[in-house]
């Protein structure tokens, strides 16, 4: 494998070697079009069918026809939301949250410009939703609720099963962006009221460019892409057979590794977190520490800036990511940190470490050693820091002529 220590698995994951092996023949001898009648197509068609079952099994879906292959998580999100609006033209409202991935938020902003009303549920300082407030918003005007299962930045879990029940009782469609949850948490869709769910292959050791929209049987649907009869006419375009086969294999492996995720991956994450917190002052865990993905840990380091931390980590071969404004090229720190009301002194210095089953405890120990000197080095440069602690009343001590 690679030399570096990869702790950015919420951004994307390594394709599992077994997955690569499984997909390779579909670039060479197995090149047929799965829709073709002849033997070339037929074999590929069977492989796609098998992959659909593997995905179905990981999601606990009742029917394999509820699995629609798409090109990515973003496409699944767009398909779900736009379908609900087109299928119910009289319903002009959407309920979502302030902390969704841009795949949902940017689309919602555009829909607002087109005249739809979007309700953005707020979160508290730990990133938790106000469920009674959500319940009050459900009405006949709402076309769809779209709430993520797990947050990509903090790992915080939302009670989507409960929220889906509420939506169903109010007669409202419910979609969840489960891109970060699938493969990390046990999911059994047939026992929930979730109508639609998005997942993305590259977050669970399958390649980039393959996703799934789960669509419960009977839920009214309008395709995003119309054309051929692929995916039963619900997503036209010749199937990305190699990636579909790969995703199937990855789902099978994720199902087998589910226990490992809950125990070993979680243990590595906890060790990493405690190791850093024990040595570095003025930092804290963001999100709901008691209710989050087993692989994610987001630590806000006060008075220093995230990108600078990442660059220094990178120099030591450690890969993580940050919610700082600078890493995204915008002026504001991450919308997730802002929504949780994390102070600016810390939001810019938030760093996300996201693990996978391919990490080791030895790597974790190396990161625990690397972080404190990096933080110290940057704090030495910071005008908000002096000696062993922040300057008194940092906002006042450093008060530029404009802000």
């Amino acid at each position: 494998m690679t030399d570096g220590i990869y702790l950015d698995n919420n951004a994307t994951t390594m394709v599992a070697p077994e997955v690569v092996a499984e997909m390779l023949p579909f670039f060479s001898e197995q090149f047929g079009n799965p829709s073709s009648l002849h033997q070339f197509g037929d074999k590929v068609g069977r492989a796609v069918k098998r992959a659909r079952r593997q995905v179905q099994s990981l999601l606990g879906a009742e029917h394999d026809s509820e699995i629609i292959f798409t090109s990515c998580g973003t496409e699944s999100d767009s398909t779900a939301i736009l379908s609900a609006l087109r299928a119910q033209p009289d319903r002009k409202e959407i309920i979502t949250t302030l902390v969704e991935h841009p795949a949902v938020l940017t689309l919602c902003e555009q829909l607002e410009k087109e005249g739809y009303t979007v309700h953005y549920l707020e979160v508290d300082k730990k990133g938790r939703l106000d469920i009674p407030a959500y319940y009050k918003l459900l009405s006949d005007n709402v076309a769809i609720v779209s709430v993520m299962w797990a947050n990509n930045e903090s790992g915080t879990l939302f009670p989507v099963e409960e929220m889906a029940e509420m939506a169903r009782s109010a007669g409202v469609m419910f979609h969840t962006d489960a891109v970060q949850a699938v493969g990390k948490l046990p999911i059994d869709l047939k026992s929930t009221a979730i109508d639609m769910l998005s997942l993305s292959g590259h977050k669970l050791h399958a390649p980039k460019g393959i996703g799934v929209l789960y669509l419960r049987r009977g839920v009214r649907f309008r395709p995003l892409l119309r054309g051929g009869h692929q995916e039963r006419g619900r997503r036209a375009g010749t199937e990305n057979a190699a990636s579909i086969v790969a995703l199937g294999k990855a789902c099978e492996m994720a199902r087998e590794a589910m226990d490992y995720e809950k125990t070993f991956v979680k243990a590595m994450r906890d060790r990493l977190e405690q190791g850093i917190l024990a040595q570095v002052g003025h930092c804290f865990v963001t999100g709901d520490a008691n209710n989050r993905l087993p692989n994610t840990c987001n630590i806000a380091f006060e008075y220093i800036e995230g990108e600078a931390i990442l660059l220094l980590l990178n120099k030591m071969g450690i890969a993580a990511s940050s919610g700082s404004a600078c890493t995204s090229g915008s002026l504001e720190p991450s919308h997730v940190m802002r929504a949780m009301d994390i102070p600016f002194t810390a939001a810019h210095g938030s760093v996300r470490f996201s693990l996978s089953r391919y990490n080791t405890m030895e790597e974790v120990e190396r990161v625990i050693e690397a972080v404190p000197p990096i933080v110290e080095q940057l704090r030495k440069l910071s005008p908000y820091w002096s000696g062993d602690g922040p300057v008194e009343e940092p906002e006042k001590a450093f008060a530029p002529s404009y802000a």
Partner: protein
Amino acid sequence: MWDYSEKVQEHFFNPRNAGAVDKANAVGDVGSLSCGDALRLTLKVDPDSEVILDAGFQTFGCGSAIASSSALTEIIKGMKIDDALGVSNQDIADFLDGLPPEKMHCSVMGREALQAAVANYRGEEWKDDHEEGALVCKCFAIDEVMIEDTVRANGLRTVEEVTNYTKAGGGCSACHEGIEEILTRVLAESGERFDPNAVAGEIKKPKSGLTNLQRMKRIEELLEEIRPNLQRDHGDVELVEVDGKYIYVKMIGACAGCQMAATTLGGIQQHLAEGLGEFIQVLPAEELARRAAMGG
């Protein structure tokens, strides 16, 4: 991650002059926690010669903010403060072999810290006149505030005009949707609607009654108005000849060889046409020579 030059990386990993200068007699604070960038520049200036003897920085910010601070202190050490004030943000970026467009604001912060420190040394008050918005055009590092201000000041109505005045949108064109949104918003302030089919720069009827001399002066004034835009990019323009509706100019500095020279000329033409209220054509000085040679 970012496409940082070797030099940027080098100054980030091994920053020069980090920390506050001992016995400093000039301090410049700029930036803020909220925007994720803050810089305190401390200088020790020799009161007799006004030479900067020592410079130090403390920076809260990303890789390029730290590298820009380091570069700034290296550039200005040993300079007289008057000369140091001539250091532009582009100089800082050039010193670092360039910065990504999203990061140019880091070099601006460096220049501002310097101005603030000099003002502090001279016992003056320093006011920041620079507001920053979200980056709209990545090709030319143009932000929202800059586009909005230019649209308002010049009554622009089309994406093409915005490109002529600010360069935004003149490259890959991926930002045209964003520019249209700004136009829609700004035009709405005066109750107007953005019309995607509007033709750039409608020329108003000629204003009668300008003498030749008045007209010449007016042309000079109008050029003066856009000069800061060009200078910001290290360029300039010089009036060479006015021959009826033909106005010949010479592009100087960065503008001369710039691949955007034609667009820039277009922008100048538009500005002059609107300001004079008549149809004119702005041509490069070389054209004058060519026409003369052809005897025409």
